[in-house]
Every structure is written in structure tokens, then in C-alpha cells.
């Protein structure tokens, strides 16, 4: 603190406006600062667009300003329509995810543990996986009609494959060394599966389930676009047919929130199961 008095005046006044001083606050950015920084771009875009429409620079018919989207969303929520559509979509995703994930885990466990099942089933399943899931839509409609069944089936098919691949792969990559620990202590087949295999494949299985859930939301949109009288996908189609861009965007925002919430719920529910993991997640 005594040094500056000895130094020439110019050098003391220079740093605050100079380049080197800029790096300091950046390094000290706390978590809150980072959140603010991540919101900066979307907020600036939203406010800029709002101003552009208000001042008459842009029309805002095809790309309504945020205030209008918000108003539409609020109106939908107030009338109760939004909940109706959200509920319809969530029920489809939940049912499709439940069926697809259960089947994926069951078949994945089967092919992962039994060589016979692997040689019998895996090639066929891999071939079916190569079919884009949307290609099944016409067939499902032909077979199952246009109500809920084909929609749930499509979602289940979409969820099945990533879960199946994830579980079968996780079983195949269980560390032989840990299995040997089980053998040394003479665990029975079922005890080995319960005490070593199951915990070992859990993390990869949860990742597969998250992927599957994301695909569930992808396919619920596809299913609802094909023809539905309720659901967020219906809001999309309806918005397109009546040129209600604000309604489309409101539905998209609802999708974003639902998807994020569902994923966060899945992560929160399963976090206690993978607390032991020695991964980089906490340091990233």
C-alpha cells in the first residue's frame, strides 16, 4: 500500500481503465453471475424483439413478441385448456415411457446375460432399430386406429431402443474383476446379479432412461401431429392451421418446460442411487 505513493502518478491511474483489470471480475464470477450470464443472450433477444415490434420496425405476425406469447400462454392456462393439453401429452409420454422402458430393460437384461438370447434376439432388434421409428406410423394407424393406442405404441417403440441398447451394453461392460470378487465369496447367480451386476449397470441404465425420456417427448409430438384432438402437439397443428404463431410458440415453451421438468424429476429420483460414483460430474 505504500508503493503507489512512490510511483509516478500516471501508472496509478492507468490500470483501472486498462485491459489487465478486466480479467479479475471474470475470474471471480460466482454461480449467480454465471446464471445471469447465461440468461443475457435470450433476454436481450426477447427485449430487442419486443422493442422492434412495439416501435413498428417488425410486424410480429409470424414471430409474435414475447409479451403476446406470454399473454397467449396465460390465457390458455386461465381457461384451463393448457392443463387439458399438458395432461393429455403427459399421459401419453408416461404410458409410452413406462411400456418402452420396461420392455427395454427386460429385453436388454435378457440379451445381456444369456448368450442364447443375445444370438437369437439382438440381430433382429438391431435391424428393427435401423428403421426410423416414424416409418411405423402408417402401419400403426392401420393396425391400431387413430386413438391413443397407436400414439402410445409409437412412443414406446421410440423409448425402447435407447433403453435396450443402454442396458445390454451396460451389462456387457460390467467389470470382470468385480464379478470375480463375487465369485470368491461364492455368491449364487441371483446374489451375483443383485449385489454386483445391478449396482454396476445402474448408472448407465439411468443415462439410457434419460435418453429414452427425451425421445418419448420427441415421439409424442410426432404422434400428436399425425392427428389428435388434444395435447400440446394438437396446439401446434391448430396454431399452424389458423396462423396462430403465438399459440405454436406457447406450446413449444410448454414442451421445453415439461421436458426439462420430467428430466429433472428423473435425475432427482435416481440421484441417491448413484451417489457413490467417482465421476467428473461434480468438478465440471
Amino acid at each position, binding site marked *: 500500500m505504500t508503493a503507489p505513493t512512490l510511483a509516478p502518478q500516471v501508472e496509478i491511474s492507468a490500470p483501472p481503465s486498462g485491459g489487465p483489470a478486466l480479467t479479475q471480475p471474470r475470474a471471480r464470477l460466482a454461480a449467480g453471475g454465471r446464471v445471469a450470464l447465461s440468461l443475457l443472450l435470450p433476454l436481450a433477444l426477447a427485449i430487442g424483439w419486443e422493442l422492434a415490434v412495439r416501435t413498428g420496425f417488425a410486424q410480429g405476425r409470424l414471430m409474435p413478441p414475447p409479451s403476446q406469447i406470454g399473454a397467449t400462454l396465460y390465457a390458455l392456462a386461465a381457461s384451463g385448456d393448457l392443463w387439458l393439453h399438458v395432461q393429455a401429452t403427459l399421459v401419453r409420454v408416461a404410458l409410452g415411457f413406462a411400456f418402452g422402458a420396461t420392455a427395454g430393460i427386460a429385453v436388454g437384461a435378457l440379451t445381456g446375460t444369456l448368450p442364447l438370447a443375445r444370438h437369437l434376439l439382438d440381430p433382429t432388434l438391431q435391424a428393427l432399430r435401423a428403421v426410423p421409428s416414424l416409418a411405423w406410423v402408417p402401419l400403426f394407424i392401420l393396425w391400431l386406429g387413430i386413438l391413443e393406442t397407436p400414439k402410445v405404441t409409437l412412443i414406446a417403440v421410440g423409448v425402447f431402443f435407447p433403453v435396450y441398447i443402454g442396458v445390454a451394453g451396460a451389462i456387457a461392460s460390467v467389470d470382470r*474383476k468385480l464379478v*470375480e470378487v463375487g465369485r*470368491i*465369496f*461364492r455368491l449364487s447367480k441371483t*446374489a451375483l446379479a443383485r449385489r454386483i451386476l445391478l449396482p454396476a449397470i445402474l448408472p448407465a441404465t439411468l443415462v439410457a432412461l434419460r435418453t429414452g425420456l427425451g425421445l418419448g417427448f420427441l415421439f409424442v409430438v410426432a404422434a400428436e401431429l399425425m392427428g389428435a384432438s388434444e395435447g400440446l402437439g394438437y396446439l401446434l397443428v391448430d396454431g399452424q392451421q389458423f396462423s396462430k404463431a403465438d399459440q405454436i410458440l406457447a406450446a413449444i415453451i410448454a414442451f421445453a418446460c415439461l421436458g426439462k421438468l420430467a428430466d429433472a424429476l428423473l435425475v432427482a429420483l435416481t440421484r441417491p442411487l448413484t451417489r457413490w*460414483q*467417482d465421476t467428473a460430474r461434480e468438478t465440471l
Partner: protein
Amino acid sequence: MLTIEGLSKTYADGTRALDGIDLSVPQAEIVALIGGSGCGKTTLLRLVAGLDRASAGRIQLDGEGIASPHPGVGLVFQEPRLLPWLSVADNVGFGLAELPKAERAARVSHALERVGLSEHAGRWPRELSGGQQQRVSIARAFVANPRVLLLDEPFSALDAFTRKDLHGHLLALWEEVRPTILIVTHDVGEAVALADRAVVMRPKPGRLDDTIPLPLPRPRNPTSAQTEAATRKILAALDKSLRPKQSVSDIAEPQNANWW
């Protein structure tokens, strides 16, 4: 009494890992298996542990044949191999699932105390150092009260100080239940520090080459004249075992021809 008679192991690809091993170890003796890499030390341990099947010969523990993992035989692997999803205490108690909860807890806490890790009982394996993890692994094997304990280069990845410390822990546990110990090592100092007898192995195919008795009193002083003499003896035997039986020039010539 652990008896091994005419034990051979040939792998599916035709590699003869072990050929005609005969060894008998009385109860409570500590035997160090020492030899260069590829002389079948680990294969021998895996056969005694019942993890692999022998091609010929037999292994008996107090007259009982061993062909699959046996409750009287414990194994400490080269790596700790702790189950990362279990706490330190649960890892130690992993082999005691059939015991009533109270007895299991008592035995686990006693074993953890003996390896000096009582205060780490509730932690995850990932939070321990390599030496601590290996101590957990030794406790896990000891807690099942094996009659024979096999150790496969258990301290090879650790620094000299940690290793010396672990030798102490191992001997303390051994004093308590006095199992037969077969320890594979490539560290002559380790053999002299622990064993009653060093068995030197020779590679291709793996055979027992020489036996050096180590009748030194415990605790052993690594710098005493006795231990130094024993170390020299083992080193000489090792040197002999690594030199091929045929005259050196026979083997050396083709090797030299291809060298460039």
C-alpha cells in the same frame, strides 16, 4: 495343511502356464512365491482360489479338494477391487451376508480397527488413498476367517513407506487368526520381511525352481545381517531361475541374429 500335487495349467491357446507344481504348506506358514513375470505365479493363486480350473493335478485343503471358490480360502487381488457403491464397512462385510447383522457389524468394526481404518467406515472407497483401499481389501478377506489367505502382489502399486506399513498390518492380522498365507510378490525385500519360506518360480512353463527357508525371528529388522544374507540368497536363486537351463549361447544366438 494346503497340498498341491502335480498341478498343471495349459490355457486354451496352448500356453503352458504351470507344469507339475508340488507344494505343501502347513497351517499358519507364510510362503512367498517369487519369480519373474510370466512364470505362472498369478495362475497358481487363481487355481488355489478356485477361480480357474487346473488342467491336471489337484489342490487339497485339509484333505478337501478345491475346484471352485472355497469358504476356507480368501484372496486379496493385486488391485483393491472394492465395490464402489458400498461404503468401506459394507465392503469389508461383503462376504458375511449370511451372518446376523450384529455379529457382522462386530466383525467388520474389529477388522477395520486392526487395519487402522475405523474412522473411515462410513466413507466411499473413492475417498480413500490406494494404500487405504488395499487395507480395506485385506480386511475384507480376513473378516471371513479363511484358513488359507492368498495375496496376489497386493502391495506392488504402493510406495515403499505404505508397503512397509501394510506389511505390519498384514502380520498383525495374521498373528490373530494365523491362517496359511501364500503371497505372490516380485519384491525380494517383501518376501524376506514376511515369509517363513520363499519359493522361487521359473518361467516357460511355470515350475517351482528353488525353496529358500527364512527362519528369521519376528519382528524382522530389514537391515540386520540375517535378512541381508537371506535377501542375497533369494536374489541368487532368482538370477539362476531366470537363466535358461540350456547353455546361454544356444538361446542367445537366434536372439542376436534377429536383434537388428
